[in-house]
């Protein structure tokens, strides 16, 4: 997923956080209908640039808000932990999961009757509303930066529509008011997962015609879920030039939600949405520590910011407070990248040595301690692979994950960059390497641990703390050596999205490149990139060029394609596991160092908490408050 964009992690070493707090979700009291659930957040996720527009929105926290509170799709999730079934796609607006034709190229959904849009549209949702949302998804001007790539090449006629060569998408049809059908260019066994993404949710034509600009619809989002923005009943789409945003959603101030008067809970699945509170309030607090003080006093119900170490310690050690703190794996891997086109990282033995020497425990301490995550041992988190749990597979094992100098030196001795065989990288190429990290906490501290580890095997770096990490590290024509600011999570509960943008040679892009390590970089990829640079209007980008590799950089494109073609089941699952191991032992483009934890602390008035493994967040569709305990 989710480029994990909200980074409010910590610099202080947590004092013996001790992993305390609840790991069980459940009732903290008697969950009852009513009340207002009050949230403070230090930065609104929609301020990342996607404007809360579901067609393009790609920030995980916004996905949580959209899918648990505001919009429904044909399919969805239960928004619970993996153990409780949170990783399975389930029907949402559709009567069942997709009905696939025998050749897997046609998928049909039947929409449940009686599901209506919120104010001001109010009418029943029809199949045509999905045609509208897909046309929006297929409109190139509207989807910059989003994930249209998950749909455009896969739906028949969508590429032509995207290229402006067709007026409609031939592969999306409203067979009748309640039946929507998709024709695919190739079988997609994970199609139900794709349909659970916010961009696939229905959009009313009445509203869509007003929002032909990029990321403009979010402020006026018409609900199909249990809640809507306050003031939506005052919005009038009849005159697109004279629109006034609803009072409940001021993009930089607050989001206030009230119940959607047209929502019929009988059409929904209580396993997915229980919708206890009458209202939700999301307000900004630029002082996250103050949010936690207010939380403790019962003035708010949830502080949506990484808890400071002292708060975690306080809740961990206090028996009365422990039950209000929850920790769950957030399905993310945080990792270092080593650019395989740049010496000395063009030598796999050097990359292995770096993996062996890295002090992962130190890096996690820099994040804030064990409450924030555990040392990662391979690329894809066990919660995504459903296998290879911590301790079961670690090709670069060391005691307490502190690094193993002996093992690292053994790898280094095999490298051409160890000219005298002493286990140290002593060639000129080992010195003064460019190391890019993020300038926000905790990354400078993480980078310090990385540099300290690298020095043990003779590698020195020049650290650059970048305000725009992918801007600095993600331009292939301006390669860097090593980076320590990357994190990744899956877009749905299946490993496929963990590999696509991060490791495929065909995914290497001219800017904001996720595949920083250049895995799978070939002469053909270089040619494509150079062609794309030439297409740029900006003179700075236009003048850039990548040098083709002397030999293709090892990649996984063929293996990935083979796994992606398999039907869901044990064979496919094993294929992903094998691919993860192949990456770690043969390609070695990363040093995975942290599998993240989401730490949630709720206020004393909260009577129910759930963790949503899809969004790696608190599940707003399941929370409840007792107003009598609020202050």
């Amino acid at each position: 997923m989710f480029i994990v964009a909200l980074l409010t992690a910590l610099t202080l070493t947590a004092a013996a956080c001790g992993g305390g707090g609840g790991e069980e979700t459940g009732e903290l009291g008697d969950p009852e209908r009513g009340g207002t659930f009050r949230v403070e957040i230090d930065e609104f996720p929609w301020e990342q640039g996607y404007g809360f527009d579901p067609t393009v929105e790609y920030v995980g926290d916004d996905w949580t808000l959209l899918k648990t509170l505001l919009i429904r799709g044909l399919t969805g999730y239960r928004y619970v932990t993996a153990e409780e079934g949170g990783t399975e796609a389930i029907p949402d607006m559709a009567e069942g999961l997709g009905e696939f034709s025998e050749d897997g190229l046609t998928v049909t959904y039947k929409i449940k009757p009686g599901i209506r849009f919120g104010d001001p549209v109010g009418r029943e949702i029809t199949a045509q509303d999905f045609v509208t949302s897909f046309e929006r998804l297929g409109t190139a001007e509207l989807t910059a930066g989003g994930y249209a790539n998950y749909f455009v090449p896969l739906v028949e006629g969508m590429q032509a529509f995207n290229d402006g060569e067709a007026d409609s998408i031939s592969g999306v049809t409203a067979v009748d008011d309640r039946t929507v059908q998709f024709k695919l260019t190739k079988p997609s066994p994970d199609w139900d997962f794709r349909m659970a993404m916010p961009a696939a949710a229905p959009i009313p034509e009445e509203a869509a015609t007003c929002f032909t600009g990029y990321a403009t619809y979010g402020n006026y989002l018409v609900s199909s879920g249990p809640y809507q923005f306050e003031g939506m009943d005052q919005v009038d789409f009849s005159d697109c030039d004279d629109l006034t945003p609803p009072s409940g959603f001021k993009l930089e101030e607050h989001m206030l939600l009230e119940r959607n008067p047209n929502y019929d809970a009988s059409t929904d699945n209580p396993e997915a949405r229980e919708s206890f509170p009458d209202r939700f309030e999301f307000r900004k607090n630029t002082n996250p520590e103050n949010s936690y003080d207010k939380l403790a006093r019962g003035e708010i119900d949830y502080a949506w910011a990484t808890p400071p170490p002292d708060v975690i310690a306080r809740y961990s050690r206090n028996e009365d407070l422990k039950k209000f703190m929850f920790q769950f794996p957030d399905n993310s891997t945080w990792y270092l990248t080593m650019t395989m086109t740049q010496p000395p990282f063009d030598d796999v033995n050097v990359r292995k040595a770096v993996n062996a020497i890295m002090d992962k425990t130190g890096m996690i301490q820099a994040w804030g301690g064990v409450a924030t995550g555990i040392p990662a041992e391979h690329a894809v988190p066990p919660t995504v692979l459903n296998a290879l749990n911590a301790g079961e597979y670690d090709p670069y094992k060391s005691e307490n994950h502190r690094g193993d100098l002996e093992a690292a030196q053994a790898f280094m001795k095999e490298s051409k960059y160890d000219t005298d065989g002493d286990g140290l990288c002593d060639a000129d190429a080992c010195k003064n390497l460019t190391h890019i990290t993020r300038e926000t906490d905790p990354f400078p501290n993480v980078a310090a641990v990385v540099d300290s580890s690298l020095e043990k095997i003779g590698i020195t770096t020049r650290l650059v703390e970048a305000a725009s990490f992918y801007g600095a590290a993600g331009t292939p024509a301006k390669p860097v050596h090593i980076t320590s600011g990357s994190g990744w999570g899956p877009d749905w509960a299946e490993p496929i999205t963990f590999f696509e943008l991060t490791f495929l040679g065909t995914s290497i892009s001219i800017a904001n490149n996720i595949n920083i390590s250049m895995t799978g970089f070939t002469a053909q990829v270089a040619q494509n990139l150079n062609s794309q640079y030439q297409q740029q209007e900006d003179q700075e980008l236009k003048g850039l060029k990548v040098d083709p590799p002397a030999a293709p950089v090892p990649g996984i494109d063929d293996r990935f394609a083979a796994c992606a073609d398999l039907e869901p089941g044990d064979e496919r699952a094993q294929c992903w596991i094998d691919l993860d191991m192949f990456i770690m032992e043969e390609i070695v483009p990363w040093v995975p160092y942290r599998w993240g934890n989401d730490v949630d602390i709720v206020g004393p008035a909260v009577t129910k908490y759930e963790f949503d493994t899809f969004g790696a967040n608190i599940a707003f569709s399941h929370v409840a408050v007792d107003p009598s305990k609020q202050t």
Partner: protein
Amino acid sequence: MLRYLIRRVLWMILVLFVITLITFWIFFVLPPVDPAVTFAGRAPTPETINRVREQFGLDKPLYQQYFHFVDAFVTGDRFGWPGMGYSFASKAAIRDSVLGRAWITMQLALGAAFLWLLIGIPIGIISALKRRTIVDRAAMGFALFGVSAPVFWLGLVGLYLFWNKLGWSAGTGYVPFGDDPIAWFRHFWLAWVVLALLYAAFYARLVRGNMLEVMSEDYIRTARAKGLSERRVVLKHGLRSSLTPVVTLFGLDLGGLLGGAIITESVFNIPGLGPYTVAAAFRGDLPVVLAVTLFGAVAITFFTLVVDVVYAYLDPRVRYA
């Protein structure tokens, strides 16, 4: 005086023009990262980047972009007057955000300014008149504390004591005066005090120094010799002359604060210009940065003009042609 005012206004316009030009150059011509790339999302195609560039108007020649910006600011855009465009990040109209936040920052700044004058000037006077006494030492000790204590620390300690423990403050956040005047005051007073302490300390030292100098002047001795009361000598003759540098500094300080008291606003969660601008700068949200810079420049140049006019009133030797 009128001719002077007209000249100063014209000069102000020239200064603003230069400021916008320099700011535009720094942020649009020499940006650390191409904003189109920043907001094009992850792994963008060339078409995506070009499209985003077009949407943001960055595909036009620089001089056209600058002219469009100035034209919109002067004549307005679809969001109103002055026209400031929309935020690359949130897509919200910048005008509404800036004006709304500026109003809030102004409340913070004016309240703090009132306090720091109320605290700083009397302390400076008393300290000067009671030179080398325990009163003087205590006053300058206060000044040292005020200057040394970081604002964020003062704010956090203040919140802990007066909100968390004593309940005298309503804590962080902002409540509009029109919604609840009492809540408005209870939210603001601690932020005013915290912000004012730093400036009060400066002003106390400044007034003390000026007073010491002025009170040793011949005309002060003359005033006493004429039989004027000490109160009149100090306030009408001594203080008036001492205040001219204070007025200068006050104008600059207030103008500068109107650009956003970043730390105070962050600690007290006051939705003013400060954190808004900082976040925009980090995100590469250039229209916001440009708009706030221009707004801040207008505020400072305006208050500098006010200061000069007040100068003429305070110091009869100053006359403007």
